[in-house]
């Protein structure tokens, strides 16, 4: 099977994933509505208490974008688990379809879906008063880091989707991913947390990614961009390798 065939199969299965997303309107709405509601809640209700100068919106938006990306990417676990339990993968295995295309299709569809969700979140953020000072290059760099983050979470999710016995079990992972940004600098600076939590919050990958995106969008110096890229690349590589092994074993 040539590289062109693999690319064609991947494109077809990506199209299938995107079509499924457009038909599952409630899941798509939730992926956008949940981060938007959280952003409105934190900016409008808690913002004044968390940052009395009224610029909490600038601080929190990068964190909410990341939360949106992570939650949306984690839905890959549900999609993969669904395919594994419904028998569609068994059907695809009887056809001359590149095995790698099945999971890659899910991951690429996840990236497309999340790009849309993140654009919606940024639009609401701008309406709430978010004023980034980033130029085109910084926006591009921030988008690149976020894309890499979505890629990493999507591949890890694909692994968990292959391991999960049911769709319900896989959906539990999405809530774990939803909770992780709270234990980072996404919503409040880590130095305001108790020491025990601070150690974890400062060194977990989400903090590195949030700080990198925040620095790029607000035009403040950031030292975490390199570490964030390395973390995401490592997670994506580990996730993709793990998914490939698990998918073969599932045969």
């Amino acid at each position, binding site marked *: 099977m040539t590289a062109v065939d693999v690319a064609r199969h991947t494109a077809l299965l990506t199209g299938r994933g995107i079509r499924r997303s457009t038909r599952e309107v409630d899941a798509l709405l939730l992926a956008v509505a949940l981060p938007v509601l959280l952003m409105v809640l934190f900016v409008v209700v808690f913002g004044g*208490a*968390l940052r*009395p100068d009224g610029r909490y919106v600038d601080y929190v938006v990068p964190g909410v974008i990341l939360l949106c990306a992570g939650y949306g990417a984690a839905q890959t676990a549900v999609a993969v688990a669904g395919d594994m339990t419904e028998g569609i993968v068994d059907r695809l295995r009887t056809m001359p379809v590149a095995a790698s295309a099945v999971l890659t299709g899910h991951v690429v569809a996840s990236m497309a879906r999340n790009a849309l969700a993140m654009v919606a979140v940024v639009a609401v953020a701008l309406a709430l008063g978010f004023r980034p000072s980033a130029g085109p290059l910084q926006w591009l760099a921030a988008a690149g880091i976020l894309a890499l983050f979505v890629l990493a979470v999507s591949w890890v999710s694909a692994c968990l989707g292959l391991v999960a016995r049911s769709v319900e079990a896989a959906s539990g992972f999405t809530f774990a991913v939803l909770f992780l940004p*709270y234990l980072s600098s996404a919503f409040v*600076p880590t130095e*305001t947390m*108790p020491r025990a*939590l601070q150690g974890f919050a400062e060194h977990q990958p989400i903090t590195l990614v949030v700080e990198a995106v925040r620095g790029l969008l607000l035009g403040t110096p950031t030292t975490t961009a390199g570490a964030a890229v390395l973390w995401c690349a490592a997670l994506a590589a580990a996730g993709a390798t793990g998914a490939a092994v698990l998918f073969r074993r599932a045969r």
Partner: protein
Amino acid sequence: MRTLDIGENTALRNAIAVVDAPVRPSPLSSTLTFTRRALLKIKHVPEQLMDVTLTPVIFTLMFTYLFGGAIAGDTRTYLQFLLPGILVQTVLIVTVYTGFTLNTDITKGVFDRFRSLPIWRPAPIVGALLGDTVRYSVASVITLGLGLLLGFRPDGGVVGVVAAVALLLVFAFALSWIFTILGLLMRSPNAVMGVSMLVLMPLTFASNIFVAPETMPSVLRAWVDINPVSALVTAVRGLMAGTATFSDVAWVLVAAAVITAILAPITMRIYRTRS
């Protein structure tokens, strides 16, 4: 078809003979029977107390340790402010289950059976509401226990805490009529849960549970000031701190009385016509 002999005929006549009907149970007796039924449900399905347990634990830990330092400067100060509010939020979230369990009974057809019984009409609903008070009490004990464990110290003492919980239970009983109405109107238990959460979100989050209203935008503050949940939180906070005024408590009792006076008859009317 064979005819019955004299002996068999007499036995049959005796078996179906008209005797005095059992005494119709009083409204109190009927209500207490349904209260017991609600408690038996908790006994047989203890998993339904999971939400009651997990919600206050997650919210208390998350807001105290993740946001407490940023909001109040340190976690201990914030815990003193937060815990009475979390107590209110927890109990109010639990009131949603009143409508949820009621709707489950209706969809399963159990309520049709109850309506055919010679009992006081509102007994199944009032009994369920009273039974749910136990659920609220469990939620209160768990929240307070966790708070004390984390370092919450109510200056109002035991009397203040008991008075605060009692006031909260009165208000929760009143508020649960809203969810009872939803339970009677909605098509499925999940629909009840979804709509109830939509009702509860602005009541709990757009209140003074988590942060002082002074830090909020003026438009939101206007809502917070008239939100009955804010009045309840202020009263509960005051009773626990030993600083409550008569007007704080009176406002909550009046609000509870008004809600009950308006919604209880509406609930009964819907119950008679819809279920």
